[in-house]
């Protein structure tokens, strides 16, 4: 079955780049441009994995991750944080909010896809 990936980022370049890349890798991709719409899309499509930007308008990626973990329907969803904040404390906060992996911008699209594949392979076992 084709895995579904949610991309939540307020930057259209990142959204379009990841949508293109992941679609070409065979994933079904759904996108959101801010925190509240990321939550709505996650609840509607129940994706296998969410790529969340940390700094999104209205609700941050951390808030979205916590909300996803607290909802029974989305609690087991894999979460990958994508952010320009590289400080140790930021990374720790990301994992504290329930992220499975953390990628720092600027990022390599190829590496990001590899990480997504690895997370999905782990969770499907």
């Amino acid at each position, binding site marked *: 079955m084709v895995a579904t990936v949610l991309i939540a980022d307020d*930057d259209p*370049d*990142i959204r*379009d*780049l990841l949508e*293109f*890349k992941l679609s*070409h890798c065979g994933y079904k991709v759904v996108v959101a441009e801010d925190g509240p719409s990321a939550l709505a899309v996650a609840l509607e499509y129940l994706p296998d994995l969410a790529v969340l930007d940390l700094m999104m308008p209205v*609700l941050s990626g951390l*808030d*979205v991750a*916590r*909300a996803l973990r*607290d909802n029974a329907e989305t609690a087991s969803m894999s979460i990958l944080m994508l952010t320009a904040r590289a400080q*140790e404390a930021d990374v720790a906060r990301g994992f504290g909010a329930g992220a499975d992996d953390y990628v720092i*911008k*600027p*990022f*390599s*699209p*190829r*590496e990001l896809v590899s990480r997504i594949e690895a997370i999905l392979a782990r969770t499907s076992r």
Partner: protein
Amino acid sequence: MSVAAYSLIALYVLAVVVLLLVVAMAMVRSLRVRQHRRAEKRAAPIRPILIRLVASDELDREALDMLGDLPDKEWRAVEPRVFAILDKVRGQAADSVATLLNSRGAADRTLRAARSHNAVKRAAAGDRLASLRHHASVGLLERMLDDPDRDVRRVAAVGLGRVGRAGSVAPLLASVTGKRRTSLLLVGDSLARIGMKAVDALVEALDSPLAAQRELAAGTLGRIGATAAAERLADLLYNDEADSVRVSAAGALSKVGTWDAVTPLRDVAAGYAPTPVRCAAIAGLAELGSAASVAMLEAIVCEPNYDVAHSAAGALARLERPGRDALTRLADSGPAWAVAHAIEALAALEMDEELGRLSLRRVLV
């Protein structure tokens, strides 16, 4: 004519000038918005090809040629987007975009702009040079660290961090002293961005005769997590003549996070040292999560030195259950001033927890 009449005329003239200025500003703004919209419209059909180029695991020659053959008018519209994307990716994606930009002569144009008399143009060129990682970028950016304009110097410092060459450590460290200096914070970010490649040069800088350079080098070694530098940092914490350097060394040791860091931090926290240095060592023990230091910190809260006692109470609040138990003990039966510190730290702890609960509730509602 009377003075009142002259004043009235002057007022009218002023009002007309202000009105003309407002109209001119509105016209310029409207022109820029229209230009921007036109450029966006022109760039829109080209963007998918650009995304394809960036997303490719290997250099997509077809996409590169399509973008390389664009008429100048369309290229000018899309070039800012290309630079914007370049800053967001690395690896093959960044190499592909840099190849495209270089094939369109962006590097040559940028190198020319970097020698402009206009500081804004020089700063913009410095930013783009860093993005392009052109072979001529590093030398030019290093020279820009001594630019007469502060903003150009800042751009150069940030740019050198982005390029990330070990050879830039010495010029960056030198840029925090002298007449044309750059902010310690900004240069520290750039040095930290260079990462492990910077460690050897930073350790060497711990022997600098300039305190600002030793302070920055120590702080950056901590941010990088250079465990190999722990012994030198401990030496600095014990012996440096400048308090600012010792404070920086304490913070760095706590971030390096090795077992070797605990002993020097405990020695300085408990022993004789200037107050800011002791406070930094106490905060370092909390950062390390040193539960073995709880009894010592509990004793420090009972000291009459307000700042040191306050720091120790704050440190205990960060040491989970053993720290909280110690604060509760102090609040119940410590000396009067220690009771105040303990109650304040416990209240701050409860407030943090309550804020966390509120924030989660806000998200869930």
